[in-house]
C-alpha cells in the first residue's frame, strides 16, 4: 500500500504526464473503440463520452468485485465489504470536508481509499485479536465510520450534503474523467495483486490452519485481502453507491458457486458480474433510475435464475434415474455419495 500511495503522490506531481496518459487510454483507446462499436451497432448511447466512461466503470467493477469477492464469500467474510464501504463513506465525507474547508482539491475517492484501507487493517487487527470474524467488531467499525461521515457532512454549512448523495446511492454522472482514471488504476492494482497472491489466497481460503502449517504468512495475506476489499469498494462506489457496493463482492460469486473448480467459478462470477453491470448501466440510462440498484437487481435475478436452473437440471437427472452416474450430475459437480 505504501507503494500505492507513493505512486499516487508522484503521479499527482507529474500532472501533465497523467493527463496525457488518461487521454490516451480514455479517448484514443476506449473512446475510439466505443465510437466504432456505436457506429457498427447503431446504438447512439455507446458514443456519448459519459456513457463510455460508465461502461468502462461497469467492466472494471464486474472484473474486480467477483475476483476479490470469491475469496471473501468462501471464507464467510461477506460482511467485511459492507463495513469497508461505510468506512469509505467516512473517507468521502472527509475529502469533501477538507475541500470545502481548506480550499484545496483532493479527489474524495483518494481520501476514501486511505480511510477504507486503514479501516481494513483495523478490522483485521480486531479479528486477529478476537480470533473470529465477530459481527460485533464489524458492526462497531461499520456504524462508527458512518457516524464519522454523517458528522463531517453536517459540520460544514450543508454545501457538501449534495455531493455526498451521489456517493451514497451511486450515479453514472460521478464517473468523471479523473474518477475513471482512478478506477482504472485501482482495477489494475487489484488484478495484479490477486494474480500474484492467488495461490496463498486460495490456500488460506480452503484451509487456513493448513496454510499456516505450510509456512504461508496467513496474517499478511489476510491483511492484503482486507485492503484489496477496501480498494474494490472504493473503486466500485462511484456507480454502485456506498450502500449497495458490497453486493458486487457477493452476489455474482453466489451465482457462480455451482460451477465446479475454483478458477472456473471465479470466471463464472466475473461473467455474471459483467452481465449485471452492463445490463444495469443500460437499463439505468434508459429509464433514468439508480444505476447501483438496477445492477444489484439484475445480479440477484441472475443468481435466482442460476439457482433454479441448477435445481431443475438436478431434479431432471434424478427423475431420469441417471443421478448415480457422475457425468449427468455434473452441473454442480455434485454427487449423492454422502
Amino acid at each position, binding site marked *: 500500500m505504501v507503494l500505492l500511495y507513493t505512486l499516487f503522490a508522484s503521479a499527482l506531481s507529474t500532472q501533465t504526464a497523467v493527463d496525457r496518459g488518461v487521454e490516451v487510454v480514455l479517448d484514443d483507446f476506449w473512446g475510439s473503440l466505443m465510437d466504432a462499436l456505436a457506429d457498427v451497432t447503431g446504438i447512439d448511447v455507446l458514443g456519448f463520452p459519459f456513457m463510455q466512461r460508465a461502461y468502462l466503470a461497469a467492466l472494471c467493477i464486474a472484473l474486480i468485485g467477483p475476483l476479490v469477492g470469491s475469496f471473501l464469500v*468462501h471464507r464467510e467474510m461477506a460482511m467485511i465489504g459492507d463495513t469497508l464501504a461505510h468506512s469509505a463513506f467516512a473517507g468521502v465525507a472527509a475529502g469533501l470536508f477538507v475541500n470545502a474547508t481548506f480550499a484545496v482539491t483532493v479527489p474524495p475517492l483518494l481520501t476514501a481509499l486511505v480511510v477504507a484501507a486503514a479501516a481494513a487493517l483495523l478490522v483485521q487487527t480486531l479479528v486477529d485479536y478476537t480470533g473470529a470474524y465477530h459481527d460485533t467488531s464489524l458492526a462497531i467499525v461499520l456504524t462508527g465510520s458512518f457516524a464519522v461521515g454523517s458528522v463531517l457532512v453536517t459540520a460544514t454549512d450543508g454545501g457538501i450534503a449534495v455531493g455526498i448523495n451521489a456517493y451514497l446511492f451511486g450515479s453514472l454522472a460521478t464517473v468523471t474523467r479523473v474518477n475513471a482514471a482512478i478506477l482504472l488504476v485501482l482495477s489494475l492494482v487489484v488484478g495484479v495483486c490477486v494474480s*500474484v497472491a492467488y*495461490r*496463498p489466497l*486460495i*490456500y488460506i*481460503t*480452503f*484451509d487456513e*490452519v*493448513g496454510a*499456516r*502449517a*505450510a*509456512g*504461508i*504468512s496467513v496474517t499478511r495475506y489476510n491483511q492484503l485481502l482486507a485492503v484489496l476489499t477496501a480498494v474494490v469498494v472504493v473503486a466500485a462506489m462511484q456507480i454502485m453507491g456506498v450502500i449497495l457496493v458490497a453486493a458486487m463482492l457477493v452476489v455474482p460469486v453466489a451465482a*457462480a*458457486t*455451482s*460451477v*465446479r*473448480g*475454483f*478458477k*472456473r*467459478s471465479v470466471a463464472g462470477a466475473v461473467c455474471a458480474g459483467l452481465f449485471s453491470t452492463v445490463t444495469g448501466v443500460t437499463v439505468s440510462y434508459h429509464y433514468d433510475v439508480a444505476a447501483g440498484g438496477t445492477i444489484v437487481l439484475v445480479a440477484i435475478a441472475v443468481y435466482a435464475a442460476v439457482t433454479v436452473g441448477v435445481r431443475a437440471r438436478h431434479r431432471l437427472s434424478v427423475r431420469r434415474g441417471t443421478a448415480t452416474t*457422475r457425468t449427468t450430475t455434473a452441473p*454442480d*459437480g*455434485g*454427487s449423492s*455419495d*454422502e
Partner: protein
Amino acid sequence: MAVIEVRDVRFAYADRPVVDGVSLAVEAGEFLGLVGPNGSGKTTLLELMIGLRQPDSGSVSLFGAPAASATHGDRVGYVPQDVANAKNEMPITVREAVRMGRYPQKLVGRFSETDRTAVEEALERVEITDLADRRVGRLSGGQRQRVFIARALAADADLLALDEPTVGVDAESRGAFYDLLNELNEDGMTIVLIEHDIGVVTTHASKIACLNRELFFHGDPETFAETDALGDAYGDAQSILQHNH
C-alpha cells in the same frame, strides 16, 4: 536422526496449563500415536510440534531447526481436526486442493512438469485419481481425508501430522485409511497421529505417547499395554472432572 525433538515444553491458555513439562523425540520413520483423554493437550502438543504454536518455555525443534521458524512448509503435511465433517461449500476440485501441496515451493509462476507429475502421482498413490475433478465439499469423509493426505504427498512431505483424522468416517473407510498410513510409513514417512481409539493406535503405530497435560508414557505399544499409564492418565482426568463439580 530425530525429526521432532520436544524438550521440557510448557504451554498454557491464559492461566490454564495444557502441556506441562513434556519431553519426547520422534525419530525418522517412526509412527507415533498420541493418546489421552479429551482436553489432555494432544492437539496443542501436535501444534507445538509442527510450529503452529510457540511454547511458553522449553523448546521444540523440527528437522533440526526451531519448529516455529516457518521454514518447514513443504516438509510437513498437516491434516487438521474435523476435515472429514467440515462442510465446505467452496467450489474447489480435488485436483486443485492437491495442487496446493506444491504451493509452498511455488507461490508464483507456472507449474513445471515435476510439479504436475507430483500432483498426479499423489492422486494415484491414495487412489483418488478418479475423483480428481469432483468438488472436495461433495466427497464422503473418508475420501476427503485422502485429499489431504494426497496434498501432503504432492508436497513431498517427510512428516505427516494428523489430528483425529477418522472421526465421522465409516468403519470400512477407516480400516482402508489406516492401511494407507501404514503403507506410507513403510515407505519412510514419519507419522504423528492423534487418535481417540486406543485399539486402533496400538495396532498401527510403532510408538505410543500417552498424555494428560504431562507425559504418562512414551514407548512401544507392547509395553504400553502392560503398564498402568492409560489408567493413570485417564484416572487423573476423572478426578479433575470431579473436582470441578
